[in-house]
């Protein structure tokens, strides 16, 4: 049996925070069989997190074998995670993604992303919402972070 990445203490804390989960969230994981240093750990981490709440689920894909789907979700790096909504069988893509393992400080970003997508409410100011309504062309925001 593989050793858990999340200890019991963390799991309990996360479970408490997950009380705030609203709508179901589907996590899409994209990995690669070889040459991906952080794929296995990222998948295991995602599996352990979604297991904490029945409002969360995970689908596993391979960026090469499922290339068409990867393209659809704009995944070009592994490990890649998509945080999507789920409505019955339907997956709702909001364009919320992560590239790389969400460990260390970024573990809280992962939890926040799940809560955000689950709420289906951006929480942004009225001014920002109004501005975003004016956008009628694709915008890609890439936020670079480091794990520490």
């Amino acid at each position, binding site marked *: 049996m593989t050793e858990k990445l999340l200890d019991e203490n963390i799991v309990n804390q996360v479970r408490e925070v997950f009380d705030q989960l609203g709508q179901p969230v589907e996590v899409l994981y994209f990995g690669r069989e070889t040459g991906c*240093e*952080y794929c296995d750990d990222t998948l295991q981490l995602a599996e352990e997190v979604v297991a904490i709440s029945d409002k969360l689920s995970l689908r596993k894909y391979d960026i090469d074998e499922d290339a068409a789907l990867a393209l659809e979700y*704009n995944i070009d*790096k592994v490990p890649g995670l998509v*945080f999507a909504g789920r409505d019955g069988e339907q997956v709702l893509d*909001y*364009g*919320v*993604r*992560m*590239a*790389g*393992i*969400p460990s260390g400080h*970024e573990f809280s*970003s992962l939890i*926040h*992303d799940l809560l*955000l*997508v689950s709420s*289906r*409410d*951006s*929480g*942004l*100011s009225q*001014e*920002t*919402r*109004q*501005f*975003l*309504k*004016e*956008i*009628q*062309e*694709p*915008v*890609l*925001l*890439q*936020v*670079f*972070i*480091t*794990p520490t």
Partner: protein
Amino acid sequence: MLLAHQMALESPYVQAEMVEAMEFPELANRHRVSGVPQTTINDGAGTAVGAVPESYLVEEIRKALKIKAS
């Protein structure tokens, strides 16, 4: 809370990707990532360094897309 992800949730045109810079050094170098978080708009059309306020990122997106202030 990641501002870029909030924006992605709000707009069907916005996609936001959080990138672990150490794992993808080529991409980080290409965008000259110096401080984190650093937000790159449309592959370099705009950039914002640091944990910037909502209004600041809005302005940077506006400039990058050449949308006039309303």
